[in-house]
């Protein structure tokens, strides 16, 4: 950068440019929505398919795929250089940390509360986390994803387990994958 007298317009351009470059860091987080979105979508669709085939251990898709996500997240966290700490990053870490713990509590009690109800609760939690994320990032597709998952709660709770599983699959697609790809498309270039 040169050391010279700036015009006011140049000052504003520098400010805008740097803020856009800073925003690019948000694009790097889209990978989390994509990885978990695909894992959840495949697990849900897989479980649905296994149930249609009357396979007794249809839930095995979750048992196989979710730990893969957990291992990935662990190594991703170690690998990713935390070079910046934005205001929103702390809030996002808190939201998704709370989501993960809440989800684990629900799933740990799935046999007691029945899996259809557990899946319905999952949708409420997904809706909460994605909506709040969208609000923090000021990113509407995530907020819409939140609304979608909340609406899918009705499909899950008022029908049966098969529809609850489908609701999870739709939620993964609409609340994670679509916003994830849009986030990557919008901010990924500046990262």
């Amino acid at each position, binding site marked *: 950068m040169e050391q010279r007298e*700036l015009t006011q317009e140049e000052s504003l351009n520098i400010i805008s*440019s*740097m803020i856009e470059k*800073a925003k690019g860091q948000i694009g790097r987080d889209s990978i989390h929505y994509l990885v978990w979105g695909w894992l959840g979508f495949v697990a849900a669709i897989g479980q649905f398919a296994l149930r249609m085939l009357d396979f007794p251990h249809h839930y095995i898709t979750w048992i196989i795929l979710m730990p893969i996500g957990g291992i990935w997240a662990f190594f991703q966290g170690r690998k990713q250089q935390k070079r*910046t700490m934005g205001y929103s990053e702390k809030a996002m870490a808190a939201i998704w940390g709370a989501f993960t713990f809440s989800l684990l509590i629900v799933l740990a009690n799935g046999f007691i509360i029945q899996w259809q109800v557990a899946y319905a609760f999952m949708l409420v939690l997904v809706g909460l986390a994605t909506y709040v994320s969208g609000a923090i990032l000021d990113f509407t597709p995530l907020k819409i994803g939140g609304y979608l998952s909340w609406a899918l709660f009705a499909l899950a709770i008022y029908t049966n387990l098969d529809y609850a599983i489908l609701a999870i699959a739709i939620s993964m697609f609409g609340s994670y994958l679509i916003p994830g790809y849009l986030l990557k498309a919008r901010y990924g270039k500046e990262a």
Partner: protein
Amino acid sequence: MEKKLDPLLHNELRLAIMSLLVSLKSCDYPFIKEKTGATSGNISIQAQKLRDAGYLSIEKGFKDNYPQTIYKIQPAGLKAFEEYVNSLKDYLEGNL
């Protein structure tokens, strides 16, 4: 009457550094170097000027046995940046 712009911020690299920190709250030295494209020496000199004015803090430490320098914006820096932007807006609105 045109407000005088803060001379500390009315500089290309210092303004760029402060703009990044206003957005992110804190970042490390390689990030600033990558985003501004400035030389190492220039970043150090300009960052020190901002630190001496209380606009940012500079924390030096180690990460995985490598030296690490973290810049964090300070309340005085945020205030100064806000006033700078408002002055810019006033100037541009007055000139339209």
